[in-house]
């Protein structure tokens, strides 16, 4: 056993890179996965431009109001000023930013993380069907490393895709908040890392048990829309009906999005809130990663 690594984690990078290579070495797949969030952001972000609904252009003082109240030109200027700011005030109050596309782009970042972890987790079904899993199980590579490599590759992919959305959102009108500094990007990565670890461990524990690709597909279709809409992806939780609020407030995606919004688009950061958001997402990641890895590990040790 000379020339052999004694590390318990040997093979981790080899297996992770195997997953990643399949993705970045296939140009068509690579480009398509990048196109998808762009289309989402371009279409949804512009179609649902809530800012224009309450924007200043739609609000002017009607002439009869001016004559009846006998307003002086000075008063008219003050009122007009109030009206032209009313849209921004509503937007700022509701979304924490005057730009809806900025609000939604952060939602899309989290949404993409969810989507990517779901799809990357499916490769484990193929590994089982095509016998690769059995082959890996007969080598000295640790069972935990096999599972961890899946989790890690899904996480890395998601973080990359999410960063692309952020970059693309800028020319589409994304506005950074007053509290934004370059360091905050690291904070965003930390959020993404935590949520992706948790989600992909969960999906891999589910997928490793299925021999057919249809099963994870059904699970995903069932989960992804409720998880997205019962979160603050498109709309602030405070404005939702009570029962939906209850779901959205325990949804870890909401905490991820709200945390990332503080870091990226809000005018000021509430650090106690931010700490809570990190704690919640961190706990979610810890619990799900542990449960996911234990469940997968037990399955592989039958």
């Amino acid at each position, binding site marked *: *056993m000379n*020339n*052999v*690594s*004694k*590390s318990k984690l*040997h*093979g981790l*990078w*080899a*297996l992770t890179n*195997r997953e990643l*290579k*399949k993705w970045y*070495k*296939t140009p068509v797949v690579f480009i398509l996965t990048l196109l998808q969030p762009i289309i989402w952001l371009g279409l949804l972000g512009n179609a649902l431009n809530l800012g224009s609904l309450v924007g200043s252009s739609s609000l002017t003082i009607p002439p009869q109001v001016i004559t009846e109240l006998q307003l002086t030109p000075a008063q008219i200027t003050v009122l007009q000023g109030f009206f032209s700011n009313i849209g921004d005030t509503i937007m700022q109050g509701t979304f924490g930013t005057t730009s809806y596309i900025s609000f939604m782009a952060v939602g899309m970042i989290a949404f993409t993380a969810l989507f990517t972890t779901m799809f990357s987790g499916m490769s484990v079904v193929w590994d089982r069907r*095509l*016998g*690769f899993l*059995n*082959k*890996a*199980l*007969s*080598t*000295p*590579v640790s069972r935990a490393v096999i599972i961890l490599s899946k989790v890690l590759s899904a996480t890395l992919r998601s973080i990359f895709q999410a960063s692309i959305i952020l970059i693309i959102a800028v020319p589409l009108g994304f506005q950074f908040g007053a509290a934004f500094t370059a360091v905050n990007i690291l904070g965003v990565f930390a959020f993404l890392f935590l949520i992706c670890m948790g989600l992909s461990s969960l999906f891999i524990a589910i997928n490793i048990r299925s*021999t057919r690709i249809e099963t994870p597909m059904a699970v995903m279709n069932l989960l992804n829309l409720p998880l997205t809409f019962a979160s603050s992806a498109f709309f602030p939780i405070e404005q939702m009906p009570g029962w939906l609020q209850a779901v959205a407030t325990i949804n870890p995606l909401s905490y991820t999005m709200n945390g990332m919004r503080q870091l990226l688009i809000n005018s000021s950061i509430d650090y106690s809130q931010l700490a809570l958001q990190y704690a919640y997402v961190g706990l979610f990641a810890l619990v799900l990663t542990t449960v996911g890895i234990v469940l997968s590990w037990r399955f592989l*040790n*039958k």
Partner: protein
Amino acid sequence: MSNNAIEAEALTKVFNGSLVAVDHIDFSVRNGEIFGFLGPNGAGKTTTINMLITVLKPTEGKASILGYDIAKQNTQVRYSIGVVPQEYTADEDLTGYENILLCADLYGIQREVSKKRASELLELVELTAFKDKKVQTYSGGMRRRLELACGLINRPKVLFLDEPTLGLDVQTRAATWNYIKMLKKEFGMTLFMTTHYLEEADALCDRIAIIDHGKIIVVGSPTELKDSLGGDIITVAIKEDVDITELVERINHVKEVKKENGSYRIKSENGEITAPLIIESLRKEGHVVTRLSLTKPTLNEVYLQYTGKSMRDAEESGDSLYAKRMIMARRRH
């Protein structure tokens, strides 16, 4: 250490609490021999391999490889064995070379060493010219050879081959046989293989275990097994609808007569001499011989003798439901 590379004692695997895939089997494989597991689909061959290569845990019993217990010392077992699985496990999106390096990484082999070994192995399986091509462009035979190279990357002392020629054409099969023979001859490797091709077991294996319904029925070298049949087999059919069993039994050299689907299966030594005698005595009694064939014993006869059915029958009818359930169970685990 004994001179057995593999030893199994009452090795058993039960799926889902009730489906017995491997039923208390005992066998040993000597160092440096090619040992074959022969049986129809669903007989328990792959489940046995999966237990020996530490992918599945035995429900009962134990086994050891080079003295390492497969349950308690599985790390040592994994370092000393190589596996060539039934499926094509190489990644289609990667090149042949990348696939071999990936296998090396799973053993934690350092990069400088693995690069050198990968080149040697590619040379050995004659894939050097294609090493930088993606595996999806490979033919079936090339993919088999790549699997073989991957299985050899850690210089294993014991190599497991699960149905090494399944789905290959005649030419590629012959080439694969040559590789297997070479591994034994050049490297003194111990090989454990499963197959459901009788001629393959006959051509390659030093010793064979016939397995059916999860049980080992008989173990021995192909020659021993054939000899145990006690000679050649003559099959005779006559025009008349009368029983000639007693008549034939009286002929010299004839050991056993069995009536089977309107013809008679006659076991005899020196079939070439006995056959004319049979025809002669049947004629004397006024019978018309419509058909006669002489077969030297093959593993097919051995299989027939010990299981009471031919391999093809076992796979096609009666047992197929059982076999299918077994294969499904295996896939689920």
